[in-house]
């Protein structure tokens, strides 16, 4: 019983962790992309459609990543090349993504999906409990863990990561040092889009293998909140993601048991929890100021 609950928590947490990791990288480079929800839903629809038409969920995963990344380029072009307002452009990306995905997915509504099957790692999966929980998962779960380790190494141990953090903290100085601010930010935005797309693919191939309009249901926004919650540090995203996964699954189980609380109140819990967590994290102005990338959301036009 406990194992089953833990497994569902992990499935609910994985898309949040992946999308938040992508956004964390983008924000570390100084770009605030509020379009996570839109990129995620684009990833979900691309993944579902490809998996349905080719029969291969792995091609679906690739399509999800590609769909999210391509869609994020639109945001990159506007905010980085045309220097538009990042908040407004991110909202536009979300609105457009929800519209386009609804349009693309219309013929897929109600069709049975292709579920991404777990990959059982030999030997390791024979360990009691831990083996079945950690080493008999689907590809996307393994990717989510690899992402955290990889991003953590990249940001804090690699030279390029250091440069990227420098851009996020002061793009003017980074530019003066000869670092290509716009190019790095393009790559960071693309990475964020690819991650959001992968998270979307997880939703339509693993979490609920079908296509439902607006199936991301605010998860992109929760991922944005997770980045703040994690104070822009990769490992804390893991903790936050699983916390939210637990709240989501906990309320579903409570609904199933019928605890006497209206189901709508339980469904609202993840959203209310997001607000509470944001308040707790941000109430200390000084630590918020220290953690936030200093040039986050500020426009940059290179002087020539």
């Amino acid at each position, binding site marked *: 019983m406990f194992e089953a609950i833990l497994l569902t928590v992990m499935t609910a947490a994985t898309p949040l962790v992946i999308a938040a990791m992508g956004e964390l990288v983008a924000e570390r480079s100084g770009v605030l992309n*509020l379009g996570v929800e839109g990129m995620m839903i684009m990833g979900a629809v691309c993944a579902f459609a490809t998996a349905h038409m080719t029969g291969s969920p792995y091609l679906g995963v690739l399509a999800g990543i590609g769909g999210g990344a391509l869609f994020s380029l*639109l945001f990159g072009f*506007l905010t980085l*090349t*045309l*220097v*538009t*307002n990042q*908040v*407004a*452009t991110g*909202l*536009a990306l979300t*609105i*457009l*993504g*929800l*519209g*386009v995905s*609804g*349009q693309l997915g*219309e013929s897929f509504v109600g069709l049975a999906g292709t579920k991404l099957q777990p990959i059982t790692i030999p030997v390791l999966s024979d360990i009691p409990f831990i083996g079945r929980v950690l080493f008999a998962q689907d590809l996307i779960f393994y990717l989510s863990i690899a992402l955290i380790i990889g991003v953590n190494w990249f940001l804090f141990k690699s030279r390029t990561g250091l440069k990227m953090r420098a851009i996020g903290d002061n793009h003017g100085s980074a530019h003066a040092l000869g670092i290509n601010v716009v190019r790095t930010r393009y790559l960071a935005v693309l990475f964020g889009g690819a991650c959001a797309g992968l998270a979307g693919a997880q939703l339509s191939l693993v979490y609920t293998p079908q296509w439902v309009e607006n199936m991301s249901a*605010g998860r992109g*926004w929760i991922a*944005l*909140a997770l980045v*703040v919650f994690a104070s822009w540090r990769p490992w804390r995203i893991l903790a936050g993601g699983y916390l939210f996964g637990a709240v989501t699954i906990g309320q579903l189980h409570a609904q199933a048991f019928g605890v006497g609380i*209206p189901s*709508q*109140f339980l*469904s*609202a819990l993840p*959203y*209310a929890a*997001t*607000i509470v967590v*944001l*308040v707790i994290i*941000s*109430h*200390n*102005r000084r630590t*918020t100021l220290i953690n936030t990338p200093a040039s986050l959301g500020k426009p940059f*036009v290179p002087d*020539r």
Partner: protein
Amino acid sequence: MRIELERRARASTAFAAISPLLALVLTLFFGGLMFWLMGKDPVATLHTFFIEPLFDVWSLHELVIKAAPLILIAVGLAICFRSNNWNIGAEGQFTMGAITGSILPVLMPEWHSPLLLPAMLIMGILGGALYAGVPALLKTRFNTNEILTSLMLVYIAQLFLDWLVRGPWRDPQGYNFPKTISFAPEAILPELLDSGRAHWAAVFAIVAAVALWFMMRFMLKGFEVSVLGQAERAGRFAGFSSKKMVWFALMLSGGLAGLAGISEVSGSIGHLQPSISPGYGFTAIIVAFLGRLNPIGIIASGLVLALTYLGGEAAQLSIGISDKVSRVFQGLLLFFVLSCDTLILYRIRLVFSGNKTEAGA
């Protein structure tokens, strides 16, 4: 090839006027392209979408009905965005306003009085404003980002409404449909003309737009909004309080969204049900930007966006295209508006050589 921006010496007034129109033309072009790719005749489809609704009395009324909430919400958001406060939860404030405004007609159906309607509208405004007060409180008191909190509150408000109409407020004689009792005639916002359904919300929208235009143009409060939005530090030196501005901007936009909510329920629907808005609160963000955050411009852009809703319905009926196309149009439009606004502050140059060579270096 590379795109370079060169800052203009001063903001171009010509492009400030042209850019929304340019964005519209680009949206129509790409929309036509989309229809063509879907195998439809682009000109005929665009005609059904954007021209036909304008030549029919019934659809003109529908246009006004859909434009009114968009304009009401968007003028509030424009003030909010100009003061650099990002309320994106207007959809939630709309829902909350609809709920609080409906308390009287749902719980006291036997109270028939000419005071009923004004009381409902005031309660709707208060509900929306107080709901927007939550992110304001969290921002001023706990330094919490208002974008995320206001958005999360949208989901909570919608679930709350869902619970009300399925639970305690459900019409006992409603055959188990998730809806409240129908409002009494005294609780219905009257129609403006005999020729159709358009109701008083349109008047509220125009009054709000003109009043806020006047405030921004001639009153100290408007100046305060602009200064704090563009240079918070400068505003503080002038003695303006940015905390009070957060409260003012959020409660103003929330109140107007709440008014839009109760007007929609009272004027167009006549009862509460789980879904009362086709995303007005989010579309109003596009309306605000297309109107260049200017209340008078927003009247025009509200009508344009209302037309996309109407065109979507028309296209669904006559050509068999899904009405989701209107969402695509709305998203495209916002993208083009934002891109075209770049032209106001910058000159765009295409550079074809790999590197710029400096003369005489």
